């Protein structure tokens, strides 16, 4: 696939998503970039902002098989992965695949399930395979997890462990729409828009999606850009407000998503803007702040912003 075709399809996908999901252009852009870079997304936002709608729209326009798991405290790992069930007629165990065997998996309110169930997704997200009763079963391609969580509730929730968070390529924060956007949204509802019955045609099919996921790999990355990424990530390990910095997986993730952003812009090379525009989404869930920073009201986004504001951009001081 040529870069021009990639850019064209990307534009059409983005336009289709934005036509349904009003006022969330940045969220849509991030989500799409992560999916095309082959990464999983954690979407965080208060209820009612369209997190689930975003995932459903994505599944429709990407033409991918979509399943949803509503995470609850009593959800068991086998409810996610599936399991072997005794078949009395045949006298053997039949494998019943769980919802994880899909192309696009929505893990709704993922932090409501206990750590044991959350961990059932670990192997699936990293290895793209599930091991049940000693047998490893590959997941379909593409396999993308879109998880949502609610940031305000703490009763009865189980925060995702760092290892699990690190598996998500991006963490996207969904915020309230502006007043004008909300008016447009109300007008659309008044005109008969029903989010439960989306009438969206797929823009691409499964094969095209797989082909698109390979295009960013052809995008060139100069040494100065690599240096820039490395310096940003390294800064998270020495920042005074951060207890645990980002891992090398974060550097790789930032590189992948920057390449996807460059390809979406029709470029065969990465520029510093590609890196900087995705740095917050890649790093915000991968750093652990000191408790006193949390008490002071400092958020990971603030810290990443300050790091970006202190890291020199390649090429300007030449």
């Amino acid at each position, binding site marked *: 696939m040529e870069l021009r075709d990639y850019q064209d399809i990307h534009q059409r996908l983005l336009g289709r998503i934005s036509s349904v999901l009003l006022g969330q252009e940045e969220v849509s852009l991030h989500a799409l970039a992560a999916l095309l870079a082959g990464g999983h997304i954690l979407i965080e936002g208060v209820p009612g902002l369209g997190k689930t709608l975003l995932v459903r729209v994505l599944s429709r326009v990407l033409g991918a098989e979509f399943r949803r798991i509503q995470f609850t405290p009593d959800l068991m790992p086998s409810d996610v992965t599936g399991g072997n069930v005794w078949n009395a007629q045949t006298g053997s165990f039949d494998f019943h695949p769980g919802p994880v065997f899909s192309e696009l998996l929505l893990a709704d309110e993922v932090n409501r399930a206990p750590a044991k169930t959350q961990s059932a997704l670990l192997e699936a997200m990293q290895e793209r395979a599930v091991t049940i009763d000693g047998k490893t079963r590959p997941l379909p391609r593409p396999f993308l997890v879109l998880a949502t969580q609610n940031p305000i509730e703490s009763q009865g929730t189980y925060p995702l462990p760092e290892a699990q968070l690190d598996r998500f390529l991006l963490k996207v924060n969904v915020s309230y729409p502006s007043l004008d956007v909300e008016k447009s949204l109300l007008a659309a509802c008044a005109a008969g828009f029903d989010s439960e019955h989306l009438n969206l045609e797929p823009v691409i099919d499964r094969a095209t999606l797989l082909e698109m996921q390979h295009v960013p790999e052809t995008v060139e990355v100069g040494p100065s850009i690599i240096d820039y990424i490395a310096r940003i990530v390294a800064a998270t390990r020495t920042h005074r407000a951060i207890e645990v910095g980002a891992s090398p997986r974060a550097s790789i993730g930032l590189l992948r998503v920057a390449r996807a952003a460059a390809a979406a812009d029709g470029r065969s090379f990465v520029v510093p803007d590609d890196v900087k525009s995705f740095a917050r989404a890649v790093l915000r869930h991968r750093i652990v702040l000191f408790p006193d920073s949390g008490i*002071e009201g400092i958020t990971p986004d603030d810290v990443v912003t300050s790091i970006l*504001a202190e890291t020199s951009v390649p090429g*300007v001081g030449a």
Partner: protein
Amino acid sequence: MRLRPPLARATLLACVVTGLALGSEPPQTPTAQPTVRREVEARLTSGRYPFCSEDSYRLWQADKDRLCERRAELDADCPGLAAACQRPSWDEASSEPTSPDWLWELAQLLGESGGTAFRVLYWAALGLGVLYLGRALVRSMRRSKSDASPQPVATVAASPTEEEWSTQPAPVLLDRAQAELDRDPIRALHLAYAALLAALGQAGHVRVHRALTTGDYRRALARAQPESRAGSLLWDLDWARFQRSVDGEGARRLLLRVRELISVITVLAFLSGNTVLSGCAHSGGNEPVGSPGGPRGLGLFEELARARAPSFTRRLKRVTDVPVATTTAIVVEAHLRPLEWQILAGYVATGGHLLVAGTAAGFEEAFGQKLELEPCPAPLTAPALELVSPGSARAPLVGLVPTGADAVLGSCGALHFARVHRHGNGWVTLVADASFLDNTSLAFSDNASFALDLIKSPVGHVEFIGPWTGPGALHPLESVTNAGVGPWLLHLLAALTLLAWSRGRRFGSPRKTAAQPRRTLAEHVEALAGHYRRSGDLGGAVARYATWAIAVLGRRSGSSNRDLRALAESLHGSRKVSIGMSKDEVHQLLLRARAGAELGGDKAKLLRAFQVLRTMVDEVAGHTAQRSNRR
């Protein structure tokens, strides 16, 4: 005039020593020295005297008037100077009309009404300029106001407000880019990018910072100047400079676009008063008038003399004495006080040698000899030497009106150019025109040999006194005047007055230095308390207080704060705590307080728990404090 005792002693000692050493021989008649000529040529081509070697050197008009009539001699001895004569000087008088012909014709055609129209246009343009400037100022103020609004990241790190890179002016960076274009196009594009940013920064369109990307600049430009072309050009530069292979022709076109845009930005910024023009200093220009290496400098003479003298001093402080073993004191265009001339006269009277070149106010009174100067009517001549006059018909050298001299070393027509007088036991050599000793003069023919022979031989220490020798001051105000810092001090005084006035009566009084330890934590606690008060969440507040109080009580009473029953027993048994409750009641109270958030609405119980906890904390903490004091 009577000399002060220390000065007199020093002068006397110097004179005795030099008198004993040198006797009272007059200076020898100058002779030609081929080694001096070679030495002069070597120094002139060393690069220290750019007027003789630099291709782009320009001469001041005064130098051109003096030198350029002697093109043929210049060509032979100093070709660079001859080339500079053909180059225009900054202040060259032009014989051409100051305006083009068509403008004269237009002015005559329009007549009186043309002048009126011009004035109207002029004032309209000026008014528009003022309006534009006002608009720019208002925008700038708004921008600074919005920049000053508190940012959430302020607590994490200092926001980038200062320029930390690329302080070079845009033209310099662009020139470097142009120079790099063929060798390293990517570096040239990076430099062009930096140049464009520097121009935008100087014009006040963006705040340049090393951590900002093109996207950041484009957003800033879109906010400030939606119609600006700079954003798209920055983006094009990004496209070009981060590609692996760069098209040389495309890079050239981009550089041209950058150059055009920078010109426009600079002109607009200059018109709106937003910037200070800079970047002209690197082009070939005139030397400062007093530069030692310039055409009128004395650097070459000083170098030649220094090479011959065992000891040479360029005197910076005023003349209060003459160092011991000084064989020659040279005075060139110095502004000396009568007392200083007296000291020099005393030095000469006791056997010293003084070379005086150029005008010397105060010399006549100290030495009792009359100095009358007149323009030379003829070229310079000296026995057995071929001299070239550095003066021309328009700016001739001056000569001394003949008087009774002991020896005449050089002349110009009927006037003496250099002569020797005896004064006491020593000698005074007078040179009529100090420009004979300057760098261009010594470049010609045998002039350098003649000039060096004026210094008495064999030489000992040479004291060189000139315009750089400090005149000294009788009082501090004269010192300030001499230093030329009077206006600066007045400005500083005015600024300080304004500062004092703006600060009011408290200006200068010491500030309160009361430390505010853990200010951020205190603010956090206050904000938290306000949050609980507004939401009426008494349970949450009590629970958090109880967590802290139980930790304090556990630490002070020496029991674990995890085991509340043990803590209750410890508190109940303590003599320090007098709460009048049973062990179980204390245990229940601690449990209830810590679970305050879940108990919800029983306000009375929560308040009771809070009060008891507070009492216990006060008693335990108070007891500990007293114990600490006793220690």
